[in-house]
């Protein structure tokens, strides 16, 4: 409890003196977002799983809980975080996972962090704890402030505790590899997503499409046979498959190596293959495309906006062109007013999301 009191005190103190705080779990996602500014507020000490009842499919954990600890506790009960959040390093915390709002390979099939967030406790700008949402699946009491905190990069308050919906680990799993062009892969992935197939991850890179199927043993078996017969798919050995998906999720796969900036392109899944210089890896049935390129931000953004998507400079040294896609004027106005309402003195992670707040 004292760790929480300390966080609240630090916030009150910062607010009193109008000093900025840089909220940090383990710092594994320090690379993500705009500039890091303010005195370090380490949330790591406020740690631990508060409640986990497998039959309720809900887990509640404090912000400093290591993601690895949470995932191990779930795995022990044959459950999981279905959105497969990337840790991006040792010690990544639950608070950071929610603040970053990033999801992994299963996202297109299962949903994102925000889809599984049921409730959150937040330390507000006056240093007090507020609870939004709850521990139940269905809850429409009040505005959905807990989901608003997902991906907020800590600009509205300190995420202190979260409740998440968890799911059972699928009974069976198989990964297949199919040789095909990007255009064919995009067309096929969209067609397959409209059919009752147990696809839970996809990744295309360098003429190879990898597909993961999970679910009931019979469903996985039937789908596997179909892909082998119709597309000449080859099965990837389970260990190699796990290593591959982990490499995509944690960006340790060799695709992510190299000095060029890494762009994260979020697009409608049916958007055509992007003609952009550089290398690409396509995930989420076509809806997420990673681009390693030295092209300028203007060029990348124009190409992505043309197909109704947005581009984030995910990893790159020069952030002067802006990490996140600029917002439309009415949306930006709501952002400014929300920030003003939640954090009138601008103490929480100023400039981490957009330079102006």
């Amino acid at each position, binding site marked *: 409890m004292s760790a929480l009191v300390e966080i609240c005190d630090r916030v009150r103190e910062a607010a009193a003196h109008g000093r900025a705080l840089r909220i940090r779990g383990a710092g594994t996602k320090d690379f993500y977002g705009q500039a890091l500014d303010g005195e370090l507020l380490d949330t790591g000490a406020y740690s631990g799983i508060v409640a986990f009842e497998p039959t309720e499919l809900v887990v509640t954990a404090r912000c400093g809980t290591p993601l690895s600890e949470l995932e191990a506790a779930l795995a022990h009960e044959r459950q999981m975080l279905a959105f497969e959040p990337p840790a991006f390093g040792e010690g990544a915390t639950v608070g950071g996972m929610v603040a970053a709002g990033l999801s992994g390979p299963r996202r297109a099939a299962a949903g994102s962090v925000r889809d599984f967030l049921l409730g959150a406790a937040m330390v507000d700008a006056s240093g007090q704890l507020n609870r939004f949402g709850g521990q139940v699946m269905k809850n429409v009491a009040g505005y959905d402030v807990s989901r608003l905190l997902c991906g907020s990069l800590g600009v509205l308050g300190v995420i202190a505790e979260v409740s998440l919906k968890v799911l059972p680990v699928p009974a069976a799993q198989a990964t297949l590899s199919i040789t095909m062009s990007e255009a064919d892969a995009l067309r096929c992935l969209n067609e397959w*997503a409209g059919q009752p197939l147990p696809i839970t991850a996809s990744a295309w890179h360098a003429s190879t499409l990898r597909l993961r199927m999970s679910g009931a043993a019979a469903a996985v078996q039937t789908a596997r046979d179909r892909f082998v017969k119709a597309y000449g798919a080859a099965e990837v050995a389970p260990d190699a498959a796990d290593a591959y998906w982990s490499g995509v999720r944690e960006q340790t796969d060799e695709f992510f190596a190299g000095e060029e900036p890494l762009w994260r392109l979020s697009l409608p899944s*049916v958007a055509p293959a992007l003609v952009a210089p550089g290398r690409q890896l396509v995930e989420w049935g076509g809806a997420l495309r990673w681009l390693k390129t030295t092209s300028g931000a203007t060029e990348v953004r124009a190409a992505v906006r043309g197909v109704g998507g*947005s581009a984030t400079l995910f990893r790159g040294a020069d952030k002067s062109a802006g990490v996140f896609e600029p917002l439309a004027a009415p949306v930006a106005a*709501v952002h400014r007013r*929300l920030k003003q309402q939640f954090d009138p003195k601008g103490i929480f992670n100023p400039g981490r999301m957009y330079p102006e707040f």
Partner: protein
Amino acid sequence: MNAPQELRHADITAAATPQRQSEVVARLRAVLDPHCVLFREEETRPYECDGLSAFRQLPMVVVLPETEAQVQQVLRICRDLDVPVVARGAGTGLSGGAMPHASGVVLSLAKLNRILSLDPLARIARVQPGVRNLAISEAAAPFGLYYAPDPSSQIACTIGGNVAENSGGVHCLKYGLTVHNVLRVRAVTIDGEIIEFGSEALDSPGLDLLALMIGSEGMLAVMTEATVKLMPKPQLAQVVMASFDDVKRAGDAVATIIAEGIIPAGLEMMDQKTTRAVEPFVKAGYDLDAQAILLAESDGTPEEVAEEIASIERVLRDAGATAIKVSGSEAERLRFWSGRKNAFPAAGRISPDYYCMDGTIPRKNLGQMLVAIEEMEHRYALRCMNVFHAGDGNLHPLILFDANDPDEWRRAEDFGAEILEKCVEFGGTVTGEHGVGIEKINSMCIQFSDREREAFFAVKRAFDAPGLLNPGKAIPTLSRCAEYGKMHVHGGKLPFSDLPRF
């Protein structure tokens, strides 16, 4: 004008003067066809309530814009004249969220009822707010797709209302709520500006305003368009019906199914009062000796369903089910479901009126909750039927009463409020899917602290600075909660119960 935003227009019943009405009507008629502006009592009467008819209020004016541009004009006029606006879909809501404001405009979106596009490859549909929930699935059916959230009122309710309430349905344990199935919402702000939340990609830049907008009960902006996700229709669905001689045991059986790693497409429970009430009308073949009946549905490919149904059957048998039936045909599956789907009308046939509650609790407390409700039935001298979305802990107790007897309605209201209080006590919520509206506004005082409610007002101010969108709903003011706290009966006891009263 200097009063705090949340207090302005908070009195929903304060009627406008005839002069004010004429002024507003004249301005609205300048931008809308005369047949789209209703203000005579006989025209506005049908709008006085939504699906919760116990709460009624005649509006000053009703408008039915036919285009998004007209919605913009209406909102600009309302902003200009400082007139409250209550957006309305099909009026099937069950919390009085669309109950009018006496000096306000009801903004009906019924005429914005077109499916703008449906892309089977991208599995999305762009729809206007007045499109009926079921109409989306009907339009998607030829492509083997459907829109997953299926509130019981899906034949009539509209997607605009679903977005406003974050509607659920019978299948949301597996397929999610509205918030999980809507990609993008286009709306008009109180300033008459177009604003878009989300996009047709899975992630959008900035804060997740889409999540805020969904379930915001028409208080942040007025939706004019949405892009919804479509999913492949499961090839097959089958349902297991199990009888239990003890309600608690039925609740435990639900937990056991989940513990086995099974997420059924639907998992519903009815108590004996419900099965006995519905059986004469639906003839579903329910076991009327059972204290509770569980319905567990599996869907997917034939192989998946066969595997899952076998597991469910085994688990239920081990959990002490006294009888088990598995639907052998689509007709039989629908018959098993018919009682659950018709529980509300059945309540209407055995009682002059019924009051449907909508709390959610952690499932493990189901048994205790039922015991508590039974005790309340005696104390309030009213009957209560219990139907649950058992998979997600969402309860729909149906309190039976006669509205012609004012004391019965008062008792029903208190009974309902006490159930909701119990839900909060058990770590749940006062509303799972029907919304707060006007009905549960006092219960919000119990679930949230002053500071938390202030945070909701902060959100409201960020979207609707003048406080004109559906004022007086969903979030109670400090003074309202203080007033409620004073008179609030806790667990059947008034505060300071040693003080003499009345």
